[in-house]
């Protein structure tokens, strides 16, 4: 073989080797077995579900903390006012009713102040506002009673207080239903979450 042809073949081989070295490599063959996009999607979904679960757990804790503060105040108020309320309802002497009504207006006002100091979480906002509304109507009722307001006006205020209070209990029932359903969903959908929850 002539030296020129030898050099030509050598140059050709060098170019070929260089070209192979610069070509884009396909790394697909280096993928970890089983590591693919679907797994990434599943992992992301789990993170989202975990967030929902965390939010639900937070809501439950917030509701419990609210209830632990709210209901003892309510219970204490009932204990303080029930006998005066009985006297107000049973008395047939207007002067006695005025005395009771005045005392009740003050007690309901104190009760309202105590309730207003509670920081209600978002989940209980509706129930909390209805409770405040109900108490406000009761205060107004006793105030108007002391001012000798007409019966119609008093009946309306009493009705409004009852409507707001009934709405409050409906909303509390709704919240309990919401938590029951959420718990049931967690129990059936993912045992791990049930374990975390307990």
């Amino acid at each position, binding site marked *: 073989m002539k030296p020129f042809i030898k050099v030509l073949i050598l140059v050709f081989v060098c170019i070929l080797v260089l070209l192979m070295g610069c070509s884009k490599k396909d790394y697909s063959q280096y993928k970890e077995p089983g590591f693919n996009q679907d797994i990434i999607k599943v992992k992301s979904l789990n993170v989202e579900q975990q967030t929902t679960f965390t939010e639900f757990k937070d809501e439950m804790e917030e509701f419990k903390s609210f209830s632990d503060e709210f209901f003892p105040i309510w219970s204490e108020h009932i204990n303080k006012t029930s006998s005066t309320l009985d006297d107000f309802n049973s008395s047939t002497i207007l002067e006695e009713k005025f005395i009771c009504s005045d005392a009740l207006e003050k007690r309901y006002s104190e009760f309202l102040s105590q309730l207003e100091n509670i920081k209600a979480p978002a989940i209980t906002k509706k129930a909390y506002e209805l409770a405040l509304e109900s108490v406000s109507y009761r205060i107004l009722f006793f105030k108007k009673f002391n001012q000798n307001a007409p019966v119609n006006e008093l009946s*309306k205020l009493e*009705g409004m207080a*009852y*409507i707001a209070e*009934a*709405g409050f209990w*409906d909303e509390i029932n709704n919240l309990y239903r919401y938590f029951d359903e959420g718990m049931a969903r967690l129990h059936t959908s993912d045992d791990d979450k049930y374990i975390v929850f307990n």
Partner: protein
Amino acid sequence: MKILLAEKSKNLISALMLVITTIKDTAVKEIGPILHVDKVSSLYKELKKEKPDVLIINGGFVDHKTREAVPVMQELYPAMTILILSMDPKLEKKYLEIGIEDFILKGNSAEDFYASMLGFLKKEQKRSPIRN
């Protein structure tokens, strides 16, 4: 105008009785007897016996099947207006689909509830002479 209230909560029955009585005394004189039931079995008996002009019924009264029961009641008593009370705002659309236009959302402020009830009863007052 005879009204029948169908509500399981005794508290809400008392509240509704007070509110409707106040409206009767102040704004809608045509309101007549206000009756109430707290059991499903009593509801059908009262409907048959009293034939009220207006039925005010809680959305959850017939064991969560009120929406299925309402068209039957409407067919049996076509002259009777049905007002639904519910905590769930999404149900309003569902009742509209079956021809029930009167819906009051419970759980809003008592002021809103009273205004809605007053509006409804005033509307019924206008309808009552045609019916009678």
